[in-house]
């Protein structure tokens, strides 16, 4: 499953941070998931108990913050929310757009002991 592999990759990146920072247990992870990243936030939350199994984060909570997918129409320049407008420019119906935000999968912060 797509989301499971992504969470495994996240665990490895957080283990790097924990090592670098000399932190102990990770209490909570705050993720920023872009609406245009192709990842379904609900699936991340549902997969988390399976992904953390037998890792150093078995007791860690996961918070997922959704970052809106904001785009700019390449035809008329209108800036709009891509999901709300079904990936079409509300002014000119253009489908070519530049992504301004909501494309990334970022670890925002971790709360540690």
């Amino acid at each position, binding site marked *: 499953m797509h989301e499971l*592999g992504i969470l495994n990759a996240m665990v*490895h*990146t957080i283990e*790097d941070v924990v090592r670098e920072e000399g932190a102990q247990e990770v*209490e909570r992870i705050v993720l920023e998931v872009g609406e245009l990243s192709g990842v379904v936030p609900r699936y991340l939350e549902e997969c988390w108990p399976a992904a953390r199994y037998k890792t150093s984060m078995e007791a860690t909570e996961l918070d997922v913050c959704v970052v809106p997918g904001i785009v700019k129409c390449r035809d008329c320049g209108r800036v709009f929310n891509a999901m709300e407008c079904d990936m079409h420019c509300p002014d000119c119906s253009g489908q070519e757009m530049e992504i301004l935000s909501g494309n990334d999968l*970022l670890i*925002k912060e971790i*709360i540690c002991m």
Partner: protein
Amino acid sequence: MDAFRTIEVKRSIFDNNDRQAEELRKKLKKDKVFLMNLMSSPGSGKTTTLMRTIEALKDEFGIGVMEADIDSDVDAKTIGSTGVKVIQLHTGGMCHLDAEMTSQGLEAMGTENVDLAILENVGNLVCPAEFDTGAVKNVMILSVPEGDDKPLKYPLMFSVCDVVLINKIDVLPYFDFNLERCREAVKKRNPAAKIFPLSARTGEGMEVFTDWLRTEIRSWQEE
């Protein structure tokens, strides 16, 4: 009470994988091994394309193939019949390979006397695009029956690949596939991508791809 602290991370989820991929590329450079990551949907003709590629290049280069599949070793057996080094990697249900798995695969296969290592990634247009495997070049196959709109539907895959092979052009007359429209859609996502239309079954157009590959391997080994 224990004190909690908040660490601002602001790192991509893939940061650890991206670093491992960079390390692997450095090692490959030192060892003069060119790693090609081959990606596509299931049924696009990856194995047939590989067979043709191996036939064209096996007298000039040492070749090793890593076949990644969720299960089975059907493809590894087929490729093994060409006489090149081949190993089967099972991803255990995962839909992609990451840099660590690729690195372990190369170690298991052994890269001594290998100039061209080919990773046949899991058939999937989504997840493999997100994980840098450490490959020198990413090649993807889009076959005619899949439709010319795929670059619009899977933008990430088309933006990470260096080469798009449009396979099965021998069946173009039977499908509503517009080669020009497809080319334009790829270029919109990735202006630098090279596009080679071919038919792995008949061999038409194969030499344009194998010529490109030969040049890339030599320049990777020489630089």
